[in-house]
């Protein structure tokens, strides 16, 4: 896959006036954001500021929460996501999501990965086997599990389970990966592996990652967005946001004055 500069700079996700309510409570307030293709965008901000809520709007996982209401517009490659005409299964195949806590299925390692592609139409056994291997390789897990593909995924370590979840998502061949604090429950070595993986994967995917670790954001992301109390305060190229933030509140946050 060749990625030219032009393509690398264009916008994949564009939200306008995106607001989310849980019952009466407003969790996101009129967020306008553009997210660049084949780049890593990090979301930072204090707990409860709406990072996960924003992420879950992108693949419409908020719909599972009773009383949750989403208003405004989200466009992915120019297509409106918040529309009843969108096939939700197709949307979630394109916009893959990895959760904070690894949540492998109570199935074998192989089945964990083959499950979604099979549902989305890959029926041939040889194709599936190839896809499983490819996904595990991309998630840097193949060497560790290649001899035990048919053993339960629950026997893996926490870090391996999280990489399995990433492999499982990649296997659907999405174009966008949403990672909600994927390393926050992991040890430093597993965290480092996930970070390397993220940088590796941005060649092929547009990645949005939520993190509480500012160093992590600085290390792996190209763009950083700072949220505060349901509002997007500032989004800029990572080096710029960390060295010369435009907003006083961003500066206070990254210098550790609150949060």
């Amino acid at each position, binding site marked *: 896959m060749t990625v030219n500069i032009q393509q690398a700079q264009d916008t994949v996700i564009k939200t306008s006036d995106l607001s989310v309510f849980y019952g009466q409570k407003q969790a996101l307030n009129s967020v306008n954001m553009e997210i660049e293709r084949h780049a890593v965008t990090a979301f930072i901000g204090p707990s409860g500021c709406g990072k996960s809520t924003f992420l879950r709007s992108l*693949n419409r*996982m908020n719909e*599972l929460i*009773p009383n949750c209401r989403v208003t405004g517009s989200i466009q992915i490659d120019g297509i409106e996501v918040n529309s009843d005409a969108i096939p*939700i*299964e*197709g*949307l*979630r*195949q394109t916009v*893959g*999501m990895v*959760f904070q*806590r690894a*949540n*492998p*299925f*109570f*199935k*074998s390692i*192989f*089945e964990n990965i083959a*499950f*979604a592609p099979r*549902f*989305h139409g890959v029926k041939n056994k040889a194709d599936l086997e190839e896809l499983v291997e490819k996904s595990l390789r991309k998630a840097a897990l193949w060497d560790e599990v290649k001899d035990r593909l*048919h*053993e*339960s995924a*629950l*026997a893996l370590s926490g870090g391996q389970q999280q990489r399995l*979840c990433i492999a*499982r*998502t990649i296997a*659907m061949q999405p174009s966008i990966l949403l990672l909600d604090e994927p390393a926050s429950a992991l040890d430093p070595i597993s965290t480092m592996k996930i970070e390397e993986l993220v940088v590796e994967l941005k060649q092929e995917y547009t990645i949005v990652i939520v993190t509480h670790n500012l160093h992590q954001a600085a290390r792996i992301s190209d763009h950083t967005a700072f949220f505060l109390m349901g509002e997007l305060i500032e989004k800029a190229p990572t080096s710029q946001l960390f060295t010369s933030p435009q907003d006083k509140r961003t500066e206070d946050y990254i210098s550790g004055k609150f949060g």
Partner: protein
Amino acid sequence: MRIKAKIMDRTATFLLTAIAVLIIGVLFALLGFLLTQGWHKLNFDFLTSPPSIAEAGGGIGPQLFNSFYLLVLTMLIALPIGLGAGIYMAEYAPDNRFTRFIRLSIEVLSSLPSIVIGLFGLLVFVTMTGWGYSILSGALALTVFNLPLLVRITEDALRNVPPSQKEASLALGISKWRTITSVLLPAALPGIITGTILASGRVFGEAAALLFTAGMTSPDLVFHDFSLNSPTSPLNPMRPAETLAVHIWKVNSEGLTPDARDVADGAAAILVIAVLAFNLGARWFGTWLYRKITSGTQR
């Protein structure tokens, strides 16, 4: 203050242990009594030969078969309905008045005395349908008796699956129905199977609901006759079928044979052994299956 708390603690521990020991004691005394009373009857002849009307030496063969056949038929009818309703209650039913009403109805149904269900069965499945005393009527009455339990078992087992499993599946773009059948049900299976086996034990030992539905007599079964409509065929669902539990009741209250008491003791021992087997089997199988699904190899 410290010392007082300690004394309270000791007293409570002692009392609770005493209660537990008492319960276990009663259980073992009961089991021991039933088994020692019936032990000498447990031979092949008793288990396979038909009962006799007047002289001693009859067995419980047909009754034993009837109990199992009725159990199988009941589960064939009740399980699909129970599973379907349980899935609906756990995954689809919105939280509104109608759902709460259904839930209440299920509770009420499950607390009805089984004799009442027997009378309902007599009215609906025996008289209104014109089937007379039959295995089918009995199976339907037992379905009514068991359905609330099966619905609750399925619903609880599904609700006990960690929500992250469902979330993971839906986030992969898997449809809701496929998520239920391929992710939630397999994870809930140990609970469902354990519960179903326990429910089976209840069905196996049930008498009151069957007195007026499956009836209190059994034809002398011809065990090589498998046509579904011959009156002496064991498989004919339209014949009357006295089960083991009903037989115990009948022999005890109106048995004419000189060894009626013995027969009842033997049958009771068999019944207890079967119900025990169901319970222990359910535990063992549930644990085994859970291990297999969560950590063993699986394909």
